[in-house]
């Protein structure tokens, strides 16, 4: 529906932030695991914008398919072949959390708008 457009636009970004949060959690949990490689998520740009459903029989892409978990290529940090940098993960965690909050505010704004519409219609 058209009035939910604002929410629909933010939703992929919100999913991305949530998934990235989980990946950061995993990196922090495995900060002392030998042979563990730090991971990150990337959003595949082309699949976000271009794929459109123009006919009824088109299969809609699953929400999980637009993100990809990648391993970070970096020089080894410790001598246990683990390349997690805890400082960087903490920085990413904070940054990602603020991004999530911003998206949530945007959705909140849309919801408030809808609430207003409903309220005014009642009078």
């Amino acid at each position, binding site marked *: 529906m058209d009035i939910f457009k604002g929410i629909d636009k933010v939703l992929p970004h919100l999913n991305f932030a949530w998934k990235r949060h989980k990946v950061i959690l*995993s990196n922090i949990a495995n900060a002392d695991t030998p042979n563990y490689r730090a991971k990150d998520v990337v959003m595949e740009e082309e699949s976000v914008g271009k794929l459109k459903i123009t006919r009824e029989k088109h299969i809609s892409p699953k929400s*999980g398919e637009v993100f990809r978990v990648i391993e970070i290529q970096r020089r080894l940090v410790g001598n246990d072949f683990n390349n997690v940098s805890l400082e960087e993960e903490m920085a990413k965690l904070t940054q990602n959390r603020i991004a999530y909050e911003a998206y949530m505010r945007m959705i909140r704004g849309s919801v408030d708008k809808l609430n207003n519409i409903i309220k005014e219609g009642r009078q």
Partner: protein
Amino acid sequence: MNDLFRAFSISASGMYAQRVRMNVIASNLANYESYRANGEPFRKLEVVFQALEDPKNLSKGEVPVRVVEIRESNEPFRLVYDPTNPRANQEGYVQKPNVELVKEMVDMITAVRSYEANLNAFSATKEIAQRTLELWR
């Protein structure tokens, strides 16, 4: 919703692993001078961490950590010259447990810091969850 709880359990797995490590360090320090019932010196214990990277979890971005085993170290025992000790061998050396104080202290600091990092991540997840719940109001 299940997704949310699994995110909490990732951080929890990290905290649990570090706590097991703390227990092992405490045991090592406590047994710095002790011997077993069969007369052999105490062997240092080591924890082995493993990332649970099965492809199903990996595509979701969830990689918890697990303690796979706690094993005895094969490092050589400390030798201390003490001819009057009843455990001394012919040359007067006594075998002591292979626990090294400095290593254990360093390990302990790392474990505490990692635990804190996981705890911070845990509370970040909590905040995100609260933000999401605020939509309900």
